[in-house]
């Protein structure tokens, strides 16, 4: 019923105190940008490490000559090794199917020449801790069920696992990720403090106005609504700007990575929808909502000490 009155009060005061409004929007923009960049980077890193982590697997190739008992014993050994998170059995047929997919459209021509399926069956083993890859992998070298004659891979490649460098990289990314969470926590708190300080300053500047409102008999909610709306609008504008800024930032980095020798990573760490240039549909509304709600809460809460009778 009074919405239009409250709204025009809020907009009017935002316009009149435009310096303060700019300061508040800037504050929200900066805090939300930092928060958003942290979120985006974290997500990109996650995407990157997932593809790296997938490579920390041990492939144990099974000899075509292995007896069912030997395979069963191998399976038993895998199941009883505590460091192993999970294992997947890939049959000869599945291996061939995968190979066919890797070859793509030319597969029919190439595979036509093969008299029988040359690919061995295998176990793909994932370990719980990437540092244990070496130790776990060594347990399967020389196992009677394990093929030591994988075509084109040489005698010692019957057990294949990730190299040290990959694992070191994962370790670093892991550390960066943890640092990111800490940074996000710190900046989140800083954002709330900054917003509420800005709102408090603006309310302090208008304490006379509030005093007058109370003297003519305005209820606390009547006084509060315009301030809440002001906080809401400020938070919304600041965080939408931040969302757009983050998108531009992310896009620039993506383009840059693609133009360097690291272009492989651009494909790995950015989600496909991003690479096709679509809008950050999840990020923008959630940032905007967060900003608006924080702003509104800031506006409402900062009034408390002026509304005591």
């Amino acid at each position, binding site marked *: *019923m*009074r919405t239009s*009155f409250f709204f025009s009060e809020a907009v*009017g*005061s935002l316009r*009149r105190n435009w310096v303060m409004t700019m300061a508040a929007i800037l504050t929200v923009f900066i805090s939300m940008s930092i928060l958003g960049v942290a979120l985006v980077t974290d997500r990109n890193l996650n995407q990157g490490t997932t593809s790296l982590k997938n490579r920390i697997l041990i492939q144990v190739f099974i000899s075509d000559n292995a007896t069912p008992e030997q395979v069963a014993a191998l399976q038993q050994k895998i199941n009883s090794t505590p460091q192993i998170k999970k294992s997947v059995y890939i049959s000869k047929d599945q291996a061939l199917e995968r190979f066919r997919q890797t070859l793509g459209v030319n597969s029919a021509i190439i595979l036509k020449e093969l008299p029988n399926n040359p690919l061995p069956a295998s176990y793909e083993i994932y370990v719980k801790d990437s540092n244990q890859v070496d130790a776990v992998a060594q347990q399967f070298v020389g196992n009677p069920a394990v093929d030591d004659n994988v075509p084109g891979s040489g005698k010692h490649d019957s057990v294949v696992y990730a190299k040290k460098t990959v694992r070191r990289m994962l370790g670093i990314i892991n550390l960066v990720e943890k640092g990111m969470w800490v940074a996000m926590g710190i900046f989140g708190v800083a954002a709330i403090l900054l917003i509420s300080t800005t709102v408090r300053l603006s309310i302090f500047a208008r304490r*006379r*106005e509030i*005093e*007058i*409102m*109370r*003297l*003519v*008999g*305005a*209820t*606390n909610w*009547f006084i509060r609504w315009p301030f809440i709306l002001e906080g809401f609008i400020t938070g919304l504008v600041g965080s939408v700007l931040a969302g757009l800024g983050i998108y531009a930032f992310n896009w620039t980095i993506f383009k840059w990575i693609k133009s360097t020798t690291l272009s492989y990573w651009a494909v790995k760490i950015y989600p496909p929808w991003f690479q096709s240039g679509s809008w950050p549909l999840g990020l923008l509304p959630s940032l905007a909502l967060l900003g608006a709600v924080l702003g509104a809460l800031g506006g409402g809460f900062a009034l408390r000490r002026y509304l005591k*009778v």
Partner: protein
Amino acid sequence: MIVFENVSKIYEPDVVGLQDFTWHVPKGEFVFLVGPSGSGKTTLIKLVLKELEPTEGRILVAGRNLSTLRRSKVPFLRRNIGCVFQDFKLLPNKTVWENVAYALEVVGENRRSIRRKVPEIVNLVGLADKANSLPHEISGGEQQRVSVARAFVNHPPLLLADEPTGNIDPETSIGLMQLLMRINRTGTTVVVATHDRDMVNRMKRRVIQLEGGRMVRDEHRGSYDESPAEVTGAD
């Protein structure tokens, strides 16, 4: 309209604002509160508005007991009390019209009745041609009339004025007093705290004199005396 029973207000740590004050203002009366600066006039007015809590005693305003009145009901008490202050207390970024309308917005008055009532009262205080001016664009006397208009636009049963002529020149002050008298004639109880000796002497109304937070005189058709006379019985 107003009843004070043995009311004391002691500010922290032990400054006397008002001490053992008992008075009774019947409906429709016009009362002057006089006394030197620091004698407790503003304290008394703030107590009526429940802006301050008494340290002791009982206060009734328009039949409400202020000590049992819930905090959330205070705004509704204030809608029955028009206030005029020495410093006008106008919203600086609203026009004369908007300042007066604000008091109606607050009570949830609809657009149409706001558009009807505001011009009426702005005319009454003689500011029809200044309706769209901002407070800083008009004189002190005019600002004070805006604040009277705002206080009276709801037609409250009680109007309090704390040194309303303190910041305006003597001639304008007379006009303002006459305005308050006119408001009083509509049946509104009016309490005016003032220093202004000439004004009080001219009006010949009930005068209550304060000194050091105590009532030293209560006189009907009184004047502002330098030396406190004997306290006559209040009614």
